[in-house]
């Protein structure tokens, strides 16, 4: 898949060789900024679409750069692709995500309204990440619900191994 660059973007990127060759920054600030923006767009879009090496090379070919600069850009793309994708994945809409679970076994022995109890409970602290904040939620459950939770979530884990899911994963790639 080729990356399509607009005329404006080609113009932005067109100033790059000039900066490189001169060695000194004797071009205007605006030009530099546009150059950087163009470069950013090139790398971000390529990473987002996960375009192949060949497609990348073909896409920048239209800019008419030297071979050396083309190689440099390709290397820049390949070196930074993973990190850029990781940053981009943070931008997608999402829910709080699981971070950690702490648990504790409790037995309630008495309360204001009832003495002489033996009431086992599992108290948990669920740590979640939401948009760079960490929130911790204290929850409690009884032994039978705990077993039910385990059973249900084990079923959930098992789903990825079913033929149905395996087939879909295979065909999606």
């Amino acid at each position, binding site marked *: 898949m080729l990356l399509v660059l607009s005329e404006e973007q080609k113009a932005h990127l067109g100033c790059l060789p000039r900066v490189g060759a001169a060695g000194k920054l004797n071009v205007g600030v605006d030009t530099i900024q546009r150059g950087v923006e163009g470069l950013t767009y090139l790398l971000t879009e390529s990473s*987002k*679409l*996960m375009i192949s090496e060949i497609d990348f090379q073909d896409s920048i070919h239209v800019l008419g750069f030297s071979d050396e600069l083309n190689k440099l850009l390709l290397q820049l793309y390949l070196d930074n692709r993973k990190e850029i*994708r990781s940053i*981009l*994945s943070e*931008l*997608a*809409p*999402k*829910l*709080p*995500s*699981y971070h*950690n*679970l702490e*648990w504790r*076994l409790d037995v309630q022995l008495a*309360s*204001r*309204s*009832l*003495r*002489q*109890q033996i*009431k*086992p*409970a*599992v*108290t*948990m602290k*669920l740590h*979640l990440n939401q948009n760079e904040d960490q929130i911790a*939620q*204290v*929850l*409690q*459950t*009884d*032994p039978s*619900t*705990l*077993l*039910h*939770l*385990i059973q*249900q*979530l*084990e079923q*959930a*884990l098992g*789903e*990825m191994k079913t033929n149905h*899911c395996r087939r*879909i*994963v295979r065909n*999606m*790639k």
Partner: protein
Amino acid sequence: MELSAYAQGGWRLLGDPRRFPRRPYAALLRAAFRSLLHHPQSGLDDPDLKDIDPMVLKHCHAAAATCILEAGKQKADISAISTCLEDCKLDKERIEQFCTEYQKNKDALEILLGSIGRSPLHITDVSWRLEYQIKSNQLHKTYQPSYLVTLNVENSDSGSHPDVSFSCTMEQLQDLVGKLKDAAKSLERATQM
């Protein structure tokens, strides 16, 4: 087991056959247990009680309820209850009637009293969803499985509460399940001690 002066006063009235003949006494006991355990709004509208003075009725109902709750709270045995009612000058027959009624309702009372009180949000159920992410507008070709887990929770006070939802990868879910299983194992060991 001790009752307040007000409650003792009510029981003395309940023990007086002139104020409370046999049938109204039995009716009041039934009404007291019913109002605590089954129908909090139920009035004292048993026909057997219609001849009792309303002020006396109110006092005696309060006294009976107080005794029931105190006995339940302390998990009092029959002898403790009997001693307490003897102090209020109740005759043996009336004490026995109360104790019989109490025994019948003891378990329900214990459940009711045990459910009162503050506790953290209580998990009642879990639902999950498995999805396979293909792309977002920010990132294409993501191709990864993702779970959405929702814990249904209840508040001890108000009953309902917004559910706790979170997403996780397969590894994270494995971590969560592993920890829950550790907790379950510990629970099993503790119950065997």
